[in-house]
């Protein structure tokens, strides 16, 4: 090969090093930027983007919302309350018109430390006529400051112990306490949820702490030691509720920590599963809605909060999901047996509950739980 040819090879358009790298850079830019139609977060007419607990926008409930609001609902993938508030505080602002998550867990972030530090906009309650139907206990989930409302409750969930009735009889005294999840009677048949917050709250309540979320390090150590002692009774930890549900329905375990939709789903599928009503209290949470400052469809977001407290949505929520509605409409269509089964006793005081509040020292909680797991 001649020198001339060699130099030609490296100088020809399209193959020179400079141009190859330039081409690569251009393609990178094209891939990264030109496919983005606008750098601006444009509003799409007739759409409302929401981030909500999946059960709140199940196919049936979504259809009700879309019909009453005459809007197309785009629901983002809900992961957890932590994820939701992270998205609310993300740089560039929240990308949703309406969001919801647990009041007790989220309000410190949503409301901010002081007036003016709120991460969401004030809700115009005059646009929410159904607010007057919020039942008395749920009013605890209204986030307000200086006469302005920032969070409005729409539903309740609660965590308890799920058990296989074929193995654990309903009248077993253990079902009246969180002891079912910890003590030796069902050793080897128990599943623990692999989450620090809920598991330590449950153990804290069981060990007699009045406000488990305020446990100091010594108390956490005591709870941790208790859990380590009882770990021998645990057959397995599970990470997702799908895992827990399969373990329980497949007979791998007979007792586990569980949430409302998990119990509801298993019962609907015909499994002989029940939820315990521990005397220390089920771990409850109020789900509340809030409108991010960046919401592009504020009017429709208000309308959606209103519909979620309305009769059709509330009654379907009560019947279909197992969650409790914060609206008084929900109980109108329920028999006493259903009210008892779904846990509406939380509202009249016949079912004891304790709200899942955010721990004062979450780091210490996670550390304690890690110690339990690695012991």
């Amino acid at each position, binding site marked *: 090969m001649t020198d001339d040819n060699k130099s030609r090879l490296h100088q020809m358009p399209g193959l020179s090093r400079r141009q190859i*790298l330039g081409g690569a850079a251009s393609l990178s830019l094209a891939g990264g930027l030109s496919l983005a139609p606008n750098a601006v977060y444009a509003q799409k007419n007739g759409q409302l983007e929401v981030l909500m607990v999946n059960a709140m926008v199940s196919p049936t409930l979504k259809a009700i919302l879309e019909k009453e609001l005459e809007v197309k609902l785009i629901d983002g993938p809900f992961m957890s309350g932590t994820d939701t508030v992270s998205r609310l505080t993300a740089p560039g602002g929240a990308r949703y018109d309406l969001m919801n998550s647990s009041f007790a867990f989220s309000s410190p972030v949503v409301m901010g430390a002081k007036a003016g530090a709120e991460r969401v906009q004030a809700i115009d309650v005059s646009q929410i006529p159904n607010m007057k139907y919020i039942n008395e206990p749920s009013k605890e989930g209204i986030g307000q400051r200086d006469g302005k409302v920032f969070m409005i409750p729409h539903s309740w969930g609660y965590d308890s112990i799920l058990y296989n009735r074929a193995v654990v009889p309903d009248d077993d005294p253990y079902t009246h306490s969180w002891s079912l999840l910890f003590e030796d009677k069902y050793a080897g048949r128990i599943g623990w949820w692999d989450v620090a917050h809920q598991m330590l709250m449950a153990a804290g309540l069981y060990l007699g702490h009045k406000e488990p979320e305020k446990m100091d390090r010594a108390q956490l150590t005591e709870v941790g030691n208790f859990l380590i002692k009882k770990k021998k009774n645990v057959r397995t930890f599970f990470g997702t509720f*799908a895992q827990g549900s399969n373990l329980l329905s497949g007979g791998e375990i007979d007792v586990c920590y569980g949430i409302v939709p998990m119990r509801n789903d298993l019962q609907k599928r015909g499994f002989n599963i029940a939820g315990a009503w521990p005397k220390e209290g089920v771990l409850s949470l109020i789900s509340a809605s809030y409108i991010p400052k960046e919401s592009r469809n504020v009017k429709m977001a208000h309308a959606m909060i209103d519909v979620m407290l309305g009769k059709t949505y509330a009654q379907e929520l009560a019947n279909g999901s197992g969650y409790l509605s914060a609206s008084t409409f929900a109980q109108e269509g329920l028999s006493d047996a259903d009210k008892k089964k779904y846990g509406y006793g939380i509202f009249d005081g016949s079912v004891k509950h304790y709200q899942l509040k955010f721990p004062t020292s979450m780091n210490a909680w996670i550390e304690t739980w890690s110690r339990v797991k690695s012991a």
Partner: protein
Amino acid sequence: MADALTPPRQRLSKRQRRERTRKIALWSYVGFFYAFLYVPIALLIVLSFNNSDVVGLPLRGVTLRWYNEVFGSADLIRSIVNSALLGTVSAIVATTLALLLALGFRTDFPMKAWVMRMLLLPILIPGIVGGVVYLVTFGYGGMPFGVWTSTLPVHITWVLPFAFLTLFPRVHGLDPSLEEAATDLGATPFVAFRRVIFPLIKPGVIATAMFSFTLSFEEFIRTLFVIGSDRTVPVHLWTLLSDQAAPFLPAVGVVIMAVSIFASLIGFVLSAQADRGRAKVT
């Protein structure tokens, strides 16, 4: 009498015994190896037809209801389509970029080592950290979140280093005299690339594209941060797993596997054609 009719049993030599033991051990190893690889997949297929609300054994009859649930869910179908399209576009763009980079890296230039390191950086950054970085960057940049606006660039960035690492040895190991000979015979560099180089590296390019597709199709944690209200398969499945038993999961697994096998088949066909083409060239 019988003993007299039975031929005397031949004693195996030490070497033969050792050979026999070696064969048994080898076949056992191969058996376990393939069982380890394929029994779970076979079980997944079996469970996808199991008429039980529990993901697991025992088998309780044959049903197609889980497939009906999968194909009856518009959200799930949409997420599969999103993943497939995203994987395809990511694979095409990343492979093209990787090819250009691999060609560029055949020659020396200033800061070459540093450019290489920068290129490989996304592999070293943990997924969750990468996700947060993208969230912050796109957030400040005001870029809308979605499959094509934010997730595609993230997937390309994630897949590109792998594509480059797969393709670079192939391009680097190419005999430069072939290209030089083509140029000597009057081919322009573009023609030399199109007629000589590309046919030779085509199987590698196809393999890289397939690998890139798979990486993109399965990506979860980075996607979760930037997907907005859209869903890919991993993201959608994770939301489903958060509050229900999801007994249709094996059926979803089989559908996803079918998509991957289909993509692989296309890859194999193209690769075989490319190999035949290469044989003609060489």
